[in-house]
């Protein structure tokens, strides 16, 4: 069962909230993980790891550096699950 992009965004926001304490409404598609959300590489790996399990996808380590914004991650996950 594929998740819609809105569902993926909501799910990512929940993960970021649990891992960092940032409010879910701060996690929007235009935000940069590093610049705007202050997420370091270890935390990013954790977010990716939890997201992989939640959405049933695999995000290879070498792809993670290309996911600059929340929107990048949403689109990647949406495509990866199809």
């Amino acid at each position, binding site marked *: 069962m594929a998740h819609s992009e809105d569902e993926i965004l909501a799910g990512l926001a929940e993960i970021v909230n*649990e*891992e960092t304490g940032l409010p879910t409404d701060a996690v929007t598609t235009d935000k940069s993980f590093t610049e705007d959300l202050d997420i370091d590489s270890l935390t990013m790996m954790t977010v990716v*790891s939890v997201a992989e*399990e939640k959405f049933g996808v695999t995000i290879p380590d070498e792809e993670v550096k290309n996911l600059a914004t929340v929107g990048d991650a949403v689109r990647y996950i949406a495509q990866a699950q199809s």
Partner: protein
Amino acid sequence: MTNHVVITGLGVTSPLGGDVASTWEAALAGRSGVNSLEHDWVEQYDAPVRFAGELAVPAAEVLSVPETRRMDPSAQYAVVAAREAWADAGSPELDPTRLATVVASGIGGVWTLLSQWDNYKEKGPRRVSPLTVPMLMPNAPSAQVSMLVGARAGAHTPVSACASGAEAIGYAAQIILSGRADVVLAGGTEAPIHPLPLAAFARMQALSTRNDDPQGASRPYDVTRDGFVMGEGAGIVVLERESHARARGAHIYARIAGFGITSDAADIAAPSPEGQERAMRAALAESELSASDIVHVNAHATSTPVGDMGEAGVIAKVLGDRAAVSATKSMTGHLLGGAGALETIFTVLALRDRKAPPTINVTQPEPDLPIDLVRDVPRDLPAGDVAAFNNGFGFGGHNASLIIASV
């Protein structure tokens, strides 16, 4: 220790309470913090021991979700206790390069290690959390506490099994005396209530198996004692150079008057009264007090058949039979790496309130018990300048004795 190290803050989370006040109130009331374990894993894994002293206030109730996800329970407990201790000390503004931490653990992040291994086996290597290492490493509690208060003069982690908490406080005092720091947050933490440590300690025949009477299971010095009861939690104290504490007008609970540390070099598990005696005598020598100044002992006394009487003999040899001896593990269970820290805090509070806490569950004391055991109800301690011992001994032949003196 003529250049005195004083105690200016206390913090606890324990089976008796989520803070210092509730823990101490329960201890003076002689309450047990031990209960039957209600987790699914007890039945699922056929746990040989089905009771322990779990936190009275779960860490998840006082920490944020990210804190609970990024720290092993052992570090969570240390942070809970450190927050209270730091606030109690007045959250002083000071030079971070003169502030250190010494936070001990007996076995480190065992929950994280084992749950991530479970993840690996069940779901593969990609499901292993990237935070596994920073959560399981035994120095994580000390590092987390250093980040909490911004301590940049060193973050240390003595690992000496059940002597760890007492060793941490002694080592912290030495850091201050060495001139390297003015203030040190020191103590110990442990989160061992998982089926593997329970089974492992049970296989050593170190744990009580009194599954039908959890609250009565920890009974130091009773002829029917059958092992210790596992506990969890943390204790943190703020140690401070006396001149520094007085200059900022801090409340001073007591001072660290002496610290003795020895190793047995004899057996990896069995205690050695000889090494324990040397530790107590070394602390006494450093304190420049005499045995008659010592009015109270918080004994290591874990409720094991061998350990309790060995220590009792040592206490009698070093101090005679005048000191009021309390075995608070009868109420809290044994916090392993956290024990020495929690019990140092009990010792400080006993001097403050001039009340030695009770030892519960002793209905048939050892007939040849050579010490004056405080049973069932608190005992008043004398007024004036007095001092007390706290002992912590650990597998590996580690012996740490602290002397706390009134100010």
